């Protein structure tokens, strides 16, 4: 499959600053693309548009030539956010996070190093690294074809980072899931990606 962003232009309602201007990107299923740009250059916004969280002012996001909406309620392009503690409901137990995903196999849950007893805890009782594993598992449901990873290990320690990426790499290779990796760490991008794109200044 092919995920395409064509001439994406975007600006937030409240500010007059243009975040994205005619940004283009194509990712194939077998690719792992790194995205690098200084802070404030709209990387997160770009991911949100690719994942269908925001509608661009101009331009379009196409999956195999068709807009994302036609693929049904479950979006085949899933995004994993930088801050796991904002991505889970603080008042619901962690097992509800896994249940929210689209049939997450036990293999993924164990592969990410999620321990059985974490599932009965509330988010406040887990560390950032532990929460992020749940968020990744949730995004790896059956229907996922592309994964957008927005600085997903920037807040984590090196060992957890390596644990998560080693698993994720193996999983996306096996299932031919296309991957977009946003990271400030060049070392990480080199290790993980097949190529790296640089977002142009608007």
């Amino acid at each position, binding site marked *: 499959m092919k995920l395409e962003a064509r001439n994406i232009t975007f600006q937030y309602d409240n500010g007059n600053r243009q975040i994205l201007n005619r940004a283009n990107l194509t990712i194939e299923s077998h690719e792992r693309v790194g995205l690098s740009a200084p802070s404030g250059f709209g990387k997160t916004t770009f991911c949100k548009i690719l*994942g*269908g*969280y925001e509608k661009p002012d101009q331009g379009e996001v196409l999956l195999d030539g068709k807009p994302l909406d036609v693929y*049904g*309620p*479950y*979006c085949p392009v*899933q*995004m994993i*956010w930088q*801050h796991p503690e*904002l*991505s*889970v*409901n*603080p*008042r*619901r137990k962690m097992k*509800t996070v896994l249940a*929210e*995903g*689209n049939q997450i196999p036990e293999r993924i849950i164990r592969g990410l190093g999620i321990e059985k007893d974490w599932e009965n805890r*509330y988010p*406040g009782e887990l560390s950032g690294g532990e929460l992020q594993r749940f968020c990744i598992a*949730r995004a790896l*449901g059956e*229907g996922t074809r592309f994964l957008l990873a927005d600085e997903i290990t920037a807040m984590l320690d090196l060992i957890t980072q390596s644990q998560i990426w080693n698993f994720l790499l193996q999983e996306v290779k096996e299932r031919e899931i296309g991957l977009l990796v946003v990271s400030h760490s060049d070392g990480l991008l080199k290790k993980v990606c097949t190529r790296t794109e640089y977002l142009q200044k608007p």
Partner: protein
Amino acid sequence: MIHRNRREMMVLLAAVSLILLAAVTIAGANVYGDAMVTDFSRKNLPPCLEYPFGTDFMGRDMFVRTIAGLSVSIRLGLVTAAFSAVIAFFMGMAAAVLGKTADGLVSGLIDLMMGIPHILLLILISFACGKGFWGVVIGISMTHWTSLARLIRGEVLQLRESNYMKIAARLGHGKLRTAMVHMTPHLLPQFITGLVLLFPHAILHEASITFLGFGLSPEEPAIGVILSESMKYLVTGEWWLAVFPGVLLVGVVLLFHILGQGVLLILDPERAHE
């Protein structure tokens, strides 16, 4: 005595309040008939062992009357709080979910309601609805849903913008289900606490408009009626007619307040470790 931590104390206190309130409500309902019995052979008696709160100018037992009056107040408070909470829930939800126009309308209505003195509006509505039990209930519920509605509106607006609800949508979950599942654990504690804290307001307002003659009818053994009747006899030194019912009314209000604080402490995880 076993040493108890603050939280256990609070829970204990709330439980005791609940039991006391329930006891008064049930006892009051059972002696309702006795509260009307007049016996001129025992009129204007000061407090004594047989009549701990004394008797009034018609020889009615003031203790029985007070308990019955409090029971009426609590039951009225129950119905009123439930009514206002339901109005608050729907108004708050409508403001948060139905778009800008609905939000403007509801917020405007809330401001309007809060701008007019409660008691004035209350008397008007109660009077228009023919006074009595239902007049008071409608009057108070119509004027007391505003702050809870505002709270719910704010909470829902904030939750709607949360990342986890947006993620749920991208994972293919329906809007209604997502809202139910993700919002309930945030809204329910607020809602229940708001409900409990509405009681004291309802009870005090009922007493005051009844006192002014716009509430419950004079035949009922309501606290407001008792207090307004007692006014005539205060000058002749029959202090017990006003003091005991008044103090007990304040007591009931305090008990509800303690109960509300206890509920808040237990249900709100942000205050969990206080």
